[in-house]
């Protein structure tokens, strides 16, 4: 159907988006790669020449590297487990017949629309404050000593805050997937006497597996780069310094651009490994 003229018109219409994104991707990427091979300290002499792979070696051998890797993995892993498990249960619950389903859905989804700085600060102060926070009141009410959440249980607190933000996303996507399940299949299984647990395990879960994979991949990409939640709560202290935060500190706080850029390259490689899996799934979907 497409003629030669319409093909070249199409190319012209695509050009601005393609050129802009190409520039947005290539220019900073090449700069980061370049800096990562330089000894570059803007506040202490500027560009001090070629550094070879020094920055790459120093970034991984520094004492803060492995703690940052483990903090990142614990936060990403913890949030994924919580959001996917609770999200599946919540999606199944919301799919049941009930009164006021629309309103409950709105209540559950709401946290996703709260900006990260607000949710982090509200949790930090009004809930996790060891003197005046709601949790402290609750603890005292039951006769326990209030916990300084963000210093004594810093990782659990961050995971809690971020899970609260991302639970709506997982729930909403899994709910959408459940609703596309053919209810006749479930009814048939019920008539044949399959108990609730078996129905869940053999019918609902396999149907959800693709949606769960997508939730995991998309959340991983976003969670690898959480920033504001740590910035306004612990500032990277108490073992909550993730890879993203470590790079941010190297680049902007201590202005060691060469070292930070090498870290940036590691972060890009890590994100790309996850992205490849996501793109495969999305790509398959395009053909369908």
């Amino acid at each position: 159907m497409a003629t030669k003229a319409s093909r070249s018109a199409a190319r012209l219409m695509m050009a601005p988006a393609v050129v802009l994104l190409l520039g947005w991707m290539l220019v900073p990427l090449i700069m980061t790669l370049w800096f990562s091979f330089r000894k570059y300290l803007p506040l202490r002499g500027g560009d001090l020449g070629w550094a070879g792979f020094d920055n790459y070696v120093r970034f991984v051998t520094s004492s803060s590297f492995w703690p940052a890797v483990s903090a990142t993995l614990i936060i990403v892993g913890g949030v994924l487990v919580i959001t996917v498990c609770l999200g599946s249960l919540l999606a199944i619950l919301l799919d049941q017949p009930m009164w006021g389903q629309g309103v409950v859905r709105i209540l559950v989804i709401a946290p996703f629309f709260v900006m990260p700085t607000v949710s982090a600060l509200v949790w930090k102060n009004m809930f996790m404050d060891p003197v005046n926070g709601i949790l402290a009141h609750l603890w005292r009410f039951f006769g326990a000593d209030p916990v300084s959440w963000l210093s004594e249980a810093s990782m659990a607190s961050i995971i809690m805050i971020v899970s609260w933000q991302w639970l709506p996303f997982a729930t909403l996507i899994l709910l959408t997937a459940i609703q596309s399940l053919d209810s006749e299949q479930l009814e048939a299984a019920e008539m044949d006497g399959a108990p609730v647990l078996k129905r869940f395990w053999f019918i609902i879960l396999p149907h959800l597996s693709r949606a769960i994979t997508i939730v995991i991949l998309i959340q991983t990409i976003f969670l690898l780069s959480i920033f504001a939640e740590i910035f306004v709560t612990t500032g990277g202290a108490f073992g909550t310094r993730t890879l993203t935060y470590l790079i941010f500190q190297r680049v902007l706080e201590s202005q060691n651009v060469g070292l930070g850029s090498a870290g940036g390259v590691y972060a890009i490689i890590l994100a790309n490994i996850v992205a490849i899996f996501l793109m495969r799934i999305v790509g398959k979907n395009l053909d369908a």
Partner: protein
Amino acid sequence: MARAVTTQRKTLNTVLAWAVGLLIFFPILWTILTSFKTEAQAINDPPLFLFFDWTLENYAIVQERSNYMRFLWNSVIIAGGSTLLGIIVAVPAAWSMAFVPSKRTKDILLWMLSTKMLPAVGVLYPIYLICIQLGVLDNRAALVVILMLINLPIIVWMLYTYFREIPGEILEAARMDGATLKEEILYILTPMAIPGIASTVLLNFILAWNEAFWTLNLTAVDAAPLTAFIASYSSPEGLFFAKLSAASTMAIAPILILGWFSQKQLVRGLTFGAVK
């Protein structure tokens, strides 16, 4: 639902779902309630739920002390500007990919998606440096452009999935009936595309409003939007729960309302059409 559901079961579902829903919503509700308390009431032990002296003074103080309106205006300009600019760039691109697909269309779409996967922190310094060199650090226009570029892949993808649902047969029928290209675009394609464009605008406005990496790192005073304004409350002086709540409520209220309208588009937009 063909099955009959017992009232008892339905009641149980309702109670359980409402309990969980209210629990999840509670931090937001608590923030809104606290914003109407005095500072002393905000930290009262036991916490006051509804029976306190409702006051609006926190809202007045926040506005007066920190010039809240300026941050709000920056957020509106940055989120609105980047969305508008993104739509202008993305509509022609998505349009041509949906209606004149070529062998490379799929590759281009996936490549665009891959740019979204680039971790922001990996390119933080280059962008920071470019902004300094161009003299646009703490500049609204710079943030409009940067947020547009960040969200462009999502905008193109969403528009593409919507446009692809417009059946090509309708265009052929119109052509058979003698419609010119101009009429075809004006009277047939545009009306069918507007709902999709509107959903895309909505979701991207929300994403840009809540963006908190570039807005925190590239602004100081002049261009700081609400995300940065709220972050300034992380080092408080004295009693401030009620004021923090008032500032937070004002920052999230507009987006909560917009967000509730966009629930369905959220799924499509954030899964790149993989779940509808």
